[in-house]
């Protein structure tokens, strides 16, 4: 065969193969697992090439055709294997199903057959397999339901509920009708009549029991259960037995009580209660026996859950014996009985006597100078009978003042402090606060460990000085003549002098006390004079240290989010140091805590701001970075802070000379404030960096331009950025046009120059053409038409350029 004929056959084969190949190669068949169809296609392709005996080794494409045929043959073999596996599984599934086809109670083999079909359908598409799988699932569900109904029916039968069980079995019968089930139904039907009779009897027996005839109910139930037994009947029987036993024991108790054998009676009643805890009569009798034996608390315990007039009377009587007259009144209040009414009259006299007895105790205690005891009686009286003018007068104007005088006479300062603190917790007021501060004043002089407490209380007392009654009734000085500011100064001086004593001897303590004093002073300053807003306990303004020392008892105080409140947080000492510009100390005493509340977060931000500024002042912007970033949210809300940070950053930038550091610093400053100064600074240094990268050939013009455009987003009108961008764009265009010219693509170069927005580019390109014309003319190397073409290009780019007008005229372009 000649070569042309072979090529012709080759072309025919290819054209026959192509549609088959297209189908073979489409994702549709492979994705849908249509393996049988794919095998048919492959076989068809193989036939085309086999029939034409295409095996000439001289044909150029021989190698590729063989390679293709081998590839599809391998695939075909794999598909055939898969088809065989799928068919094997289906066959196996069919066998399993066939062997259990007629037994509706079997579901496991169906489940196995379904799984085999599922596996087959996962690897091969065969519509008949799909339909069979669905059918098997349907059969499986039916058998499952059938089995459930049979099981339920059987279970109900076991429990003695044959009618209910029968209903389930009839439902099952609607699905399948095996003999076994029909036999079961016959068996159930026989039992249903007995069950009906049992149900009727049980209802009647319950009715008898409801009427209180427990013995008759029990007798009838026994007869019924002999014929037909069921759980509910057995339970009723047990319950009836318990009631009858309880009633028997109760009656035995009554017999024993009648002959005054209280111990036996109690035993019987308790036994009755053990059978039937809600047998109220037994509890009532037990209470009565206890009353007869003077065991009133025990009697009350038996009456605890009982109600009714009789019970109220007994309970009231028990309280009377316990001298709890208020409860007697409560219990007898609702009883309307003539004899109880007489008792109520006597009760009134007893109550009056009781009141007077307590008053007598108060008077006796006072006369024996037992004032604490007298105070306790007063409190007991008020607790029992409420407010009484005389008792209150005696307590507040006589007993309590005497106790206070006695307390100070005791000279035991710690005991005084302890008692006054308790008094302040009960009733916070300025007088008690003042007295605590005085006790601490003396105690701190004896034991220096109390100095901090003294400072706290004295500062709190000073904060409330204008409301302090100690200065109100001075006989030697009119209240209007008191110079409160001067007095405050003198008292504060006392504290300062005390602290200063440690300056030379104990520097650590000196600083600690000074920190506390500064915190208190600052709070006083912020609260105002007279105090108008701040943290208060009732009418008493309190200082941060006072709050801190009593924090556990002051949980109800909600600290507002403001500068003053930050002093009351655990960050207070540090905040005070910051606000008084002692940031160095603040850094030293900063607590290692996590702020949780809003005010704590504000305190933390404030500290971070001051610490950050401190580092900036000392040209350590890297140390400042973290602090200021942590305070960023608060900084945004505070213009003064923004101004100060900008000022310090301006100062800091002048100290940096390294480009990289300038860049890092600029980025931090800009991220923090986004202020115009920071934006301009960052943009400038970014531009410098880009320029350097271009100069070092690290980035292309195009990369640099894109980077600069990003920089422009930081500072839109930065002159340095704009200038650099212009220059880069010029260079880029110039480079592109240069490439076009070098490649001889003059038309493209002209077009690019013509539409450039840069006048310099236009001029330069036009000038190149003009120079070529001049040099060509001088050397007489260029023809007239060529020169004119160059002239036209120059004219296209710069038609009005005066420098070139002469040339245009000479070339007769204009």
């Amino acid at each position: 065969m000649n070569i042309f004929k072979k090529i012709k056959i080759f072309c025919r084969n290819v054209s026959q193969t192509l549609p088959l190949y297209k189908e073979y190669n489409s994702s549709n068949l492979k994705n849908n697992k249509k393996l049988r169809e794919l095998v048919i296609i492959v076989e068809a392709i193989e036939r085309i090439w086999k029939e034409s005996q295409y095996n000439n080794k001289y044909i150029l494409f021989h190698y590729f055709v063989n390679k293709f045929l081998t590839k599809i043959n391998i695939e075909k073999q794999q598909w055939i294997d898969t088809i065989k596996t799928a068919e094997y599984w289906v066959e196996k599934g069919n066998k399993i199903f066939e062997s259990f086809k007629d037994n509706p109670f079997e579901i496991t083999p169906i489940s196995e057959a379904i799984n085999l079909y599922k596996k087959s359908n996962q690897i091969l598409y065969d519509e008949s397999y799909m339909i069979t799988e669905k059918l098997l699932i349907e059969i499986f569900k039916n058998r499952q339901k059938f089995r459930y109904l049979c099981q339920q029916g059987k279970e109900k039968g076991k429990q003695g509920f044959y009618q209910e069980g029968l209903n389930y079995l009839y439902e099952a019968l609607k699905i399948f009708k095996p003999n076994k089930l029909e036999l079961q139904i016959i068996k159930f039907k026989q039992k249903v009549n007995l069950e009906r009779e049992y149900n009727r009897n049980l209802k009647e027996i319950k009715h008898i029991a409801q009427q209180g005839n427990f013995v008759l109910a029990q007798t009838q139930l026994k007869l019924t259960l002999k014929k037909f037994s069921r759980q509910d009947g057995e339970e009723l029987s047990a319950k009836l037995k318990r009631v009858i036993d309880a009633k028997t024991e109760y009656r035995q108790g009554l017999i024993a009580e009648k002959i005054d054998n209280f111990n036996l009676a109690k035993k019987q009643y308790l036994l009755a209660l053990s059978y039937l805890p809600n047998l109220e009569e037994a509890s009532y009798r037990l209470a009565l026996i206890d009353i007869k034996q003077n065991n009133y608390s025990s009697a009350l315990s038996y009456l605890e859950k009982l109600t009714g007039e009789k019970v109220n009377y007994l309970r009231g009587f028990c309280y009377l014996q316990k001298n709890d007259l208020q409860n007697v009144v409560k219990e007898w209040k609702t009883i309307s009985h003539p004899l109880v009414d007489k008792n109520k009259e006597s009760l009134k006299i007893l109550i009056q006597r009781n009141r007077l007895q307590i008053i007598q105790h108060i008077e006796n205690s006072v006369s024996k100078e037992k004032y604490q005891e007298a105070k306790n009686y007063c409190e007991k009286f008020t607790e029992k009978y409420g407010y009484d003018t005389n008792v209150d007068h005696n307590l507040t104007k006589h007993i309590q003042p005497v106790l206070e005088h006695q307390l100070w006479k005791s000279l035991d300062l710690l005991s005084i402090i302890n008692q006054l603190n308790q008094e302040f917790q009960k009733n916070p007021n300025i007088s008690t606060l003042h007295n605590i501060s005085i006790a601490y004043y003396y105690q701190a002089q004896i034991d220096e460990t109390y100095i901090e407490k003294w400072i706290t209380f004295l500062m709190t007392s000073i904060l409330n000085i204008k409301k302090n009654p100690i200065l109100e009734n001075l006989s030697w000085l009119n209240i209007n003549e008191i110079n409160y500011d001067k007095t405050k100064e003198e008292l504060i001086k006392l504290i300062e002098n005390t602290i200063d004593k440690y300056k030379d001897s104990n520097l650590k303590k000196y600083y600690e006390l000074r920190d506390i004093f500064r915190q208190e002073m600052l709070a006083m300053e912020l609260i105002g004079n007279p105090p108008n807003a701040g943290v208060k306990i009732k009418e008493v303004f309190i200082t941060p240290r006072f709050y801190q020392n009593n924090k556990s008892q002051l949980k109800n105080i909600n600290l507002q989010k403001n500068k003053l409140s930050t002093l009351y947080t655990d960050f207070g000492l540090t905040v005070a140091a910051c606000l008084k510009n002692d940031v160095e100390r603040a850094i030293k005493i900063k607590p290692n805590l996590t702020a949780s509340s809003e005010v704590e977060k504000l305190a933390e931000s404030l500290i971070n701001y001051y610490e950050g500024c401190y580092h900036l002042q000392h040209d350590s912007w890297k140390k400042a970075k973290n602090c200021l970033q942590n305070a960023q949210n608060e900084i945004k809300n505070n213009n003064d802070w923004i101004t100060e940070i900008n000022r310090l950053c301006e100062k800091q930038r002048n100290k940096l000379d390294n480009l990289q550091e300038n860049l890092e610093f600029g980025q931090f400053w800009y991220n923090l404030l986004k202020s115009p100064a920071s934006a301009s600074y960052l943009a400038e240094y970014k531009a410098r960096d880009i320029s350097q990268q271009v100069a070092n050939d690290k980035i292309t013009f195009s990369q640099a331009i894109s980077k600069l455009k990003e920089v422009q987003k930081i500072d839109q009108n930065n002159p340095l950025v704009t200038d650099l961008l212009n220059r880069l764009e010029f260079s880029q265009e110039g480079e592109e046009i240069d490439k076009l010219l070098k490649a001889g693509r003059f038309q493209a170069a002209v077009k690019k120059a013509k539409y450039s927005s840069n006048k310099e580019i236009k001029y330069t390109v036009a000038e190149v053409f003009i120079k070529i014309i001049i040099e060509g003319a001088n050397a007489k190397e260029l023809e007239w038409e060529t020169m004119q073409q160059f002239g036209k290009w120059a004219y296209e780019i710069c038609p009005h350029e005066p420098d070139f007008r002469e040339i245009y005229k000479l070339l007769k372009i204009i």
Partner: protein
Amino acid sequence: MIKNEKITPNPYDVLEVSSGASTGEITKAFAMAMKKKKYNPKQIAEARKSLMDSQQRLIADYLRPNLPLIQRFKKQDLSLLNEPIPVIKLLPEFDGLDKAYKESETISESDKKLGLELFS
């Protein structure tokens, strides 16, 4: 007031005068204190100086505890306590042992109540 070597005494305590003492009383008390020698002469002199200066005296007043005035104790009429105490005894009507026994022989109301409670 507390006397301890470490403590700076209150001028009022040193001179043993009340808060309302006049200048004359303070002068007299100064002489008495010098005689008594309870405090050293320097302390006595400073106490006098403090109380003679109104601002210093104000601080001395401030550094004392604020103790309330002790008013007269008011007594009350307790004559009722001399009268006989009424006695309240348990009313047999609320015992009802016999009634309970009789009821236990028949089907009582409480049985019916119990029956309804337990078997409804």
